């Protein structure tokens, strides 16, 4: 089975969160990016998508895993991590126009690359990226490739040429069977991904990605249906009353008194 994982490098959302809470998250002069310097990491949901693929391999399936990312040279760090985790091949689509808000263009580039690979059975994506939280690439990718689509998976197994996917839906767990080829998105309920092995990390150091120029892929015109024009940081107004008390029992009693006054108990 040939599995493609679509990975994205993101600004660490926990870093963004911390800066925002202390009022220090600033947008640069372009109005479309943060000026605050923050670490770049792999989108955590994509890391879980790799884990889902590795579990298929662990289950005894003959699995080849190709990781693909769109972006500049910075992204090579993330692709090396994919090798360290156990991915067989890494491809970077070098796109000078890569950026937020252009999910359809990203999906078109990924689809063109996946079509060129030709023998792909399964595309795994994180449920959304933890920076822009859109989750718009996987569905678009399924549509462009003509693959079946299943969202919010947290367990994938292969059986008789089909896949069984456990889904974490808002209404509870669901089990579906899907024909291949398919795009499946992975949600955090999958659990914590494994650590790369030392051997994997050594292999990763010596492994440059195959780099494809976006212009060389048959991705259709670079449509800009959706364009990020502004980022801003909303205010959070604090008005918290601290409940005092010498003991937890006193604090609990004082809180209950307040909640009764508020009429919520």
């Amino acid at each position, binding site marked *: 089975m040939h599995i493609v994982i679509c990975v994205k490098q993101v*600004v660490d*959302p*926990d870093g*963004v*969160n911390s800066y*925002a809470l202390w009022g220090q*998250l600033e947008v640069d002069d372009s109005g479309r990016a*943060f000026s605050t310097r923050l670490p770049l990491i792999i989108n955590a949901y994509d890391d879980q998508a790799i884990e889902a693929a590795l579990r298929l391999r662990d289950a005894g399936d003959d699995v080849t895993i190709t990781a693909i990312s769109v972006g500049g040279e910075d992204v090579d760090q993330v692709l090396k991590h994919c090798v360290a985790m156990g991915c067989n091949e890494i491809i970077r689509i070098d796109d000078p126009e890569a950026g*937020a*808000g252009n*999910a*359809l263009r990203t999906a078109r580039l990924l689809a063109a690359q996946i079509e060129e690979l030709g023998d792909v059975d399964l595309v795994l994506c994180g449920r*959304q990226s*933890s*920076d822009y*939280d*859109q989750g*718009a690439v*996987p*569905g*678009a990718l*399924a549509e462009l490739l003509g693959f*079946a*689509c*299943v*969202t919010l998976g*947290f367990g994938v197994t292969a059986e008789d040429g089909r896949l069984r996917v456990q*889904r*974490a*839906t*808002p*209404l*509870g*767990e*669901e*089990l*579906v*069977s899907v*024909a291949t080829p398919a795009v499946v998105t992975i949600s*955090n*309920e999958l659990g914590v991904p494994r650590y790369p092995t030392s051997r994997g990390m050594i292999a990763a150091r010596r492994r440059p990605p195959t780099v494809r120029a976006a212009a060389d892929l048959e991705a259709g015109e670079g*449509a*800009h*249906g*959706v*364009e*990020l*024009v502004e*980022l801003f940081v909303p205010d*959070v107004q*604090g008005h*918290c*009353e*601290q409940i005092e008390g010498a003991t*937890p029992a006193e604090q609990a*009693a004082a*809180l209950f008194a307040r*909640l009764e006054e*508020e009429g*919520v108990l």
Partner: protein
Amino acid sequence: MSGVLVVIAQPGPAGLNQAEGEALGLGRSLADALGEPLACALIGQGLEAAASEAAERGAEQVLSADADHLATFSGDAVVAAAAEAVSASGASSVIVARGPNALELAPRLGARLGGGCVMGASAFRTDGANVEAVASVFGGSARAVYRMNAEPRVVSLAPGVAAPPEREAGRAAETVALDVAPPAEERVTVEEPAALTGPRLEDAKIVVSGGRGLQLGENFGLIRELAEALGGLPGASRAIVDDGWAPAEEQVGLTGKIVSPDLYIAAGISGASQHMVGCSTARVLVGVNTDADAPIFRYARYGITADCLEVLPELIRLARERAAG
């Protein structure tokens, strides 16, 4: 192209839910701002109640794709029906109502129609011709504004973005029956459907949530006990759902449930924005955390700076005394 089309997949047999009403509400304000009509596409089976409600809540045209094969969600069938509705209505803007399958429906529809989509929009900005959509990014820490250059513009919505329009009894709409055939092959089949029994977290008046401050998985029992003693439901942070201390359907936050109870008690939860997205509209929010600087106290109405493992048993005792009268 002209018109705003609200797309609702699998409405309930009794009519529209809150999220579907909100989509009509935001659709109405966008339609008015653009000076265009409001239409509503219903995709499912047995749509009479939903169709009359959509008309009574202001849709001037109701397009129904009513067929047996649409009784439950199938991405292939619903995307095809939605694309048919867009074509039949000639809409310039398409608003996909929030629902369990919007995550598949909106991006596929946006790709099929060629202009892409914006997910989780909370508001529109328009000068009457151009349309921009505002959406939360970085787990709620910031907002992005997206200009939508291609028609039809496809968006899905964040929760609580608009009030459902008032219902005007007897108000009628132009109705259109869409001709939809089942797909040749059902590529995704449900083997075990999601079967949530009991009350929903989204409907609870009181939610008590726990996070890593509980220190051990077994301590989530304290959260359950307090929720039960208060007549509410338990919730969990993403961190402890990932740790397996609580099931996924109890997760509150960006990637879990969005709740809006009268009282939300967050115990041992730091208040990361991706959690707060799920609970910040609670009427009264209480934070219990050992760290006086924890972000949760920026959002909370009342705070207790203490170990939740010491405070929770006291709260449980008081709640039980109160319940016993």
